[in-house]
């Protein structure tokens, strides 16, 4: 798993393996609840939940599953919800291409990654062919 640099001060809220489509549903519900608990409004709740949904679907579809980690803490001086998706799938050969609107290697619409990036306050993706992919999205109030 590729681990991104993180702040030891962040509080871990939840961490689960993601194996089935049902896990996606459950994880999405958790994210929405944590966003609500963090005092986010319905628009921000919907944004972060949808962004995470994109990452989870990708992880399920292209990497056959992975891990979702939900944390909260200070990010860039903002009290934030931090969600990291880690997988040990094939990785992404050309990240720049994958981040382009409309690019898909499969049957998708190709808006998942760039769309997720537009929906959140911070987006970080690291991928290494053969090792896996880790994507972290951050949303603050």
């Amino acid at each position, binding site marked *: 798993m590729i681990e991104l640099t993180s702040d030891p001060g962040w509080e871990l809220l939840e961490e689960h393996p993601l194996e089935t489509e049902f896990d996606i549903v459950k994880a999405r519900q958790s994210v929405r609840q944590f966003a609500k608990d963090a005092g986010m409004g319905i*628009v921000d709740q*919907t944004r972060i939940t949808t962004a995470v949904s*994109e990452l989870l679907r990708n992880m399920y579809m292209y990497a056959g599953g992975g891990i979702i980690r939900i944390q909260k803490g200070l990010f860039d001086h903002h009290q934030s919800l931090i969600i990291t998706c880690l997988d040990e799938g094939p990785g992404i050969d050309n990240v720049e291409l994958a981040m382009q609107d409309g690019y898909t290697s499969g049957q998708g619409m190709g808006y*998942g990654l760039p*769309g997720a990036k537009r929906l959140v306050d911070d987006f970080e993706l690291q991928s290494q062919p053969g090792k896996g992919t880790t994507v972290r999205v951050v949303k603050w109030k």
Partner: protein
Amino acid sequence: MNETNITNAKQRIEHIEDILSSVAAGDLDLRIESEYEDDLTGIEEAINLLIDDLTHELKKSLKLKAEMEEKLLKIQEQQKTILQQQEDLMELSSPVSKVWENILILPVIGTLDSQRTQVMMENLLQKIVATGCTTAILDITGVPTVDTQVANHLLKTVTAARLLGAECIVSGISPAIAQTIVHLGINLSNILTKATLQDAMIYALRKNEQLINGKVVLNQAINEETI
């Protein structure tokens, strides 16, 4: 102890051994029988009591086992029913109904995973063919998250319906979901959308009226309504 006594005792001990080995082999109906009253009698009676207890315990555990098996069977049956219900629910959660002359409504509730979307789409297309309706309303008020996969499914459903001669109206997109769709970058402008199911119904009814009266060219009406 004299010779006869010893022979007698030997025989009785052999009898005890026989009974014990029969018990060990599972025959619990046998008991030690003796015509004598002496020191051995106590042991013989104790063994008989032991066999009684054993029989009792064994019967109890057999009964328990039967009960457990029965319970297990019940649980397995319940599990089957639950699975069946889940399948039924999947069908139920995409119930297509003809609410008005020429108008179908499909309320979509819950999470649209690939399997459910497939069922939903097939149901709708079948119903369009079966009824000949030319307007179908897909109400997604009950869908909590519209991501690119859900949007893609919606687009495909609308396109397939169009190929069958039916126009779809997607209703129930909340303001938060509308904003999110815009940020995702998905273009839904080819789909006719209405804020609420009621708006969609009014639109569909008006379209019906126009069809019947033949007043307005349909395409023109649609263009006016599309935002």
